[in-house]
């Protein structure tokens, strides 16, 4: 009798989690991996992005994304192996999906989650257009965004080795 009970106690875990509310999962699951899974409907153009940038971003990130007081977004492409590396979205970030993801979850810093998906696409397009990573007439959406090749796409080494498992 005791033996059976001890076995049950050892083998069972509490299971106090409730089935996840699908609406909660949908609302929170906004992370976008490099293959673009989960990108929302909608689209945004470079010119629309410039207008939004001028209204909501330029005060921190500067004209053309030159930075100060917030991070420098543009420039520095090709500088990483020099004596004066300049790490920016353009020069360093390996995936365009990360830019969309971060804008949508954390920007602008005073009111995160205030931008629409449309605005996040447009801002991503505009920022990537400054150094010519996308063309001036580019429109980004769920299909085109993951296809953008960032200049430093192959600049990272998996130091831990877990991506190969």
């Amino acid at each position, binding site marked *: 009798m005791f033996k059976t009970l001890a076995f049950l106690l050892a083998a069972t875990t509490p299971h106090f989690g409730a089935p996840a509310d699908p609406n909660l999962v949908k609302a929170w699951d906004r992370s976008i991996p490099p293959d673009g899974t989960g990108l929302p409907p909608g689209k945004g153009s470079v010119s629309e992005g410039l207008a939004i940038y001028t209204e909501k971003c330029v005060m921190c990130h500067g004209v053309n994304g030159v930075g100060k007081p917030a991070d420098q977004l543009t420039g520095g492409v090709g500088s990483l192996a020099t004596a004066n590396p300049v790490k920016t979205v353009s020069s360093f970030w390996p995936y365009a*999906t990360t830019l969309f993801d971060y804008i949508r979850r954390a920007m602008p810093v005073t009111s995160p989650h205030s931008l629409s998906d449309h605005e996040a696409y447009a801002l991503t397009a505009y920022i990537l257009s400054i150094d010519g990573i996308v063309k001036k007439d580019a429109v980004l959406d769920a299909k085109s965004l993951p296809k953008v090749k960032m200049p430093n796409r192959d600049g990272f080494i998996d*130091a831990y080795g877990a991506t190969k498992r």
Partner: protein
Amino acid sequence: MTNKIAPSRRKFLTTALAGAGAAATVPLAAKADEYITPSMTVPGKAFTPYGMPSGHEDVKRLLRPPGISPGTGGSLSPIESLEGMITPSGLHFERHHNGVPDIDIKAHKFLIHGLVDKPLEFTIASLDRYPRISRMHFVECGGNSGANAGAPEPPQLTAGGIHGLISCSEWTGVKLGMLLDEAGVKPEGKWILAESADSAGMSRSIPLKEAHEQGILVLFQNGERIRPEQGYPLRLLMPGWEGNLNVKWLHRIKVTAGPTMTKDETSKYTQSLKNGKANQFNFIQPPKSIITKPSGMMTMNGPGYYEISGITWSGHGKIAKVEISFDGGSTWTDAEMPGPVFPQCVTRFRLPWEWDGKPLLLQSRATDEKGNVQPTRAVWKDRVSPVQFYQYNAIQTWQIGADNTVKNYYV
């Protein structure tokens, strides 16, 4: 306040009595009275619901100028003023990406979803019903000690001002692996994404195997509910891993096939090398040791006896050895580690020392149980990009002068 007023009042009363003639007639008693301190003669203060340090103490976190929002940036633990191995919860360093959120413990929800059989949601009340474990572990920001990595001239700061993004606590919580098992991870699930409920949406990817084996969902810090600055009401702890991975204000874990490549694991917290490439997923904090006594900005008391003391830790396991050099790294002497020595935990080292008053270069060098050794600054700098500052663990040098000064120094 009463505490501060009482001594002067008492002194005044004593003097008044003495003036009235008591001292003149009984001089011995009056003289003895001078040695009776106010604390011996006045009833002490009443009980308090939550104790605070003495009003005579002024040990505080060092606040860095804020970044783009008031809560963006960090505050440093004053390690030069602390002892032992545990950091008081109110002095644990802070690193936030958009401030400390105010989260209602009753409303907070924690989600496990993605590549699982049964997506689950938990309240803190439901997590509180799980079996708990308690562990003592350090948390160190990946950017700790970066001041010495970047500045061409050694910045003249305190030990905490340079290296204060390290703290150590007793953490209590639930094993993440147990909850992942309850959700049932699908075979294609190889990574997790851990996400914060803060306004930066701080999120990091961690390999599933290690998250399952080592991850702790922390509910308590040093015996009480985890502090807001440390992730109240729920934090992920990956013992010994880079601070940024220990996601605070945790509200979501998504099981994924690969890393999500978030902002903080690509553009930040990667290690840029000289050839322009960057090492990514530098999960484990390398060994480090810092002599906190004596340390930068302190003043020596002239020649004579000192106890050298400091803190050491490694994300790879226990600290095996700390050595002290008095000559800038030419010769080394083993320091004492009286214990306890726990894995992925701050360990205190000590060494009695007689200073002859001559100038010298004081250093400590840690070796962990896996054989990892702290490098010199030159060796560390040699492999990385000039702008690289994450995971700087080079040997710290304090220059002690004949004028009793203690300065930060590059050998």
